[in-house]
């Protein structure tokens, strides 16, 4: 136990690092509880009472805020489920099945990691316009499903699982799909959780695609909706409201993080692929 204890110097440095990371978030939180007028005169007013909930009340009174919240939940959940299903199937296929051009296809998938979204945004926008998918939930969810990271991630995870497990199940008469569903899939739960959390976070925070695909207020996600609710020069005359929006939009993310903290930390530490 003694050997695991951190030295005071390391502890101090870690605390300092944590403080540096936390400071902007705490400042954002404090600003969100101050009136806009007080902050316009002095943003340092955030460090002293009185505090108010008026900015949060203004968000909740917004006629479409709950609709945008629901839209974000639908889009982020849809993207997460879709990515998990497709990536697991594809990952299993690349890791375990033999089929023509498997390696070539996998390389093509990997190349997808190098293509930024901005490079394909125009043709994608045109395609979705032709298909009439803008201002719809499928239009907001489908682009997330084409990400290469999930396929790569799940392929690597499936490869790390001993093949003996498959072979034993096949000897017992299980079909390929049964092996996938009942033997291997349960073993990938840590990876599923990690991928699911990352996908949910990315879909929740996405701004660019929803901004240009959901152009009617009814289909705005929370990020786009809250941005549309801002007045011009919000950073000056509406700073408290702006910060409350930031906090409000991050609450679901915080909840997801708290629930899946273990998986996220494990993923960050690089130990999720055993």
């Amino acid at each position, binding site marked *: 136990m003694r050997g695991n204890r951190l030295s005071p110097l390391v502890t101090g440095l870690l605390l300092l690092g944590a403080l540096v990371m936390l400071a902007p978030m705490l400042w954002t939180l404090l600003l969100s509880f101050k009136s806009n007028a007080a902050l316009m005169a002095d943003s340092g007013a955030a460090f002293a009472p009185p505090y108010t909930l008026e900015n949060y009340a203004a968000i909740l009174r917004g006629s479409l805020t709950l609709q945008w919240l629901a839209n974000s939940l639908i889009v982020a959940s849809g993207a997460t489920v879709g990515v998990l299903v497709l990536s697991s199937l594809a990952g299993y296929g690349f890791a375990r099945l033999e089929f023509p051009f498997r390696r070539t296809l996998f390389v093509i998938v990997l190349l997808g990691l190098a293509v930024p979204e901005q490079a394909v945004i125009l043709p994608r926008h045109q395609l979705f316009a032709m298909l009439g998918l803008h201002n719809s939930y499928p239009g907001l969810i489908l682009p997330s499903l084409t990400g290469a990271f999930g396929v790569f991630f799940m392929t690597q995870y499936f490869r790390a699982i001993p093949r003996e497990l498959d072979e034993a199940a096949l000897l017992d008469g299980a079909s390929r799909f049964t092996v996938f569903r009942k033997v291997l899939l349960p073993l990938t739960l840590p990876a599923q959780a990690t991928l699911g959390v990352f996908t949910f976070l990315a879909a929740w925070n996405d701004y660019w695609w929803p901004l240009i695909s959901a*152009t009617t207020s009814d289909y705005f996600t929370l990020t786009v909706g809250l941005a549309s609710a801002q007045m011009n020069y919000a950073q000056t005359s509406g700073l408290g409201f702006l910060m409350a929006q930031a906090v409000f939009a991050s609450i679901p993310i915080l909840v997801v993080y708290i629930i899946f903290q273990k998986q996220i930390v494990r993923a960050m530490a690089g130990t999720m692929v055993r």
Partner: protein
Amino acid sequence: MIARALAFGFAGLLAGCAPADDRPEIVVQRFFGECGAAYGTSTDVAAAETECGILTTLINRFEAENPDIAVKVNVVAWPGYPQLAAQIAAGDPPDLVTMHQSVIADYSGASLIEPVEPLLAQATVDPGAFTPAARAGVEKQGRLYGMPWDTIGRLWHINTALMDQAGLMRDGRPVLPNSPEELLAHARQFRARTGKPYLIQAQVGAADFHVALLYTYLLARGSVIFPDDRHIRLDTPEAREIVLLFRQLNAEGLTTLNRDFPAATAAFIQGEGGIFPVGTWMLGPYEAEAARPGSALYGQYAVAPFPRLWGEEAAFVDGHAWVVPTAQRSPEERAAMARFLGFLARYNSDWSRTGQLPAFAALVETPAFRALPHRADIAALTRTGRQLPGYVERQSAVQGLIGEELEAAITGAKPVEAALRDAERRVNQLYAQML
């Protein structure tokens, strides 16, 4: 069981079939924020405040007075142009859109928005009634590409208590400079007597501020900034003189340094300097401060157009307009759009309560407008306001490039000559890359 399910499904289908709405629909797309909580059902335009409140109430009122027209409102994130471009690319643009007048040329040049004279005629809105500044903002290549909604410009917001302390008040009004030499003299006198900077300026991340300053004084001197639609001219003695003046203010500590817009705003409200050159849109918040006991501005606030330092009285201005994206529309839809524009034109005086200047000349002279705080002091902007030539495009990108160079020059990070030369080169490169 199957029959019951079918019957249930059929009933559901019937329930989903609401009576068809055969009213002509207009899709109105605007920025200015969302304030449905406060004004979602209000139709009392006179009682509404702020840009968002007044516009929301106006649209509510139009719907109430025109039940035969269906209005769909899209509130977009400021400034809304990425969404508009996406809608146009997808072939599904809205019918009426708020647009900055400086942006109109980007769209009119590519025929993405329509000339609006026919709609204005249908709405019985006389284009001859627009103020010179407002009309210049929407007139491109001899056609009107929007109904102007206001004129916005930069003003000198003034702390009269500090000006008095500095001996720069006469007959209850601030004494403003009439030449570069006088500006420096006033600033030095102000610093000596108050110990505070004469100017409060947003110099960090405030490209538009620097550009407005340079454009204003170049236009006042009659300089041709854009000789044609693919070139800018900034490497000139006139431009150097203007930038050097503001660099000198910095060097002598006669202005605040290293402040962004929120920090500069806070400094002005706290009385840390004499004059804050910023837009018409801050008139409302500063008026509120001037009315708040205990504020550094309490009863001590005045406002004026940028002073004439060179040439004639002029100010670079912009404005908002209602534009019509190009699309196929039925005569009924066009009639509905015309009625909406006519309605907005009738309520332009209410919009001027935001601090922006009216788009209709007659309103500027009305007692109601003149009775609004400080409006008589700034009404001249509707006359002296200058827009860039109608062929000038990509102002958003252009001002970003110029602003970067000016910031470096004024703060002393780069020689003035080099900054102006680089600004000119970079803008011309941008234009050369345009199709």
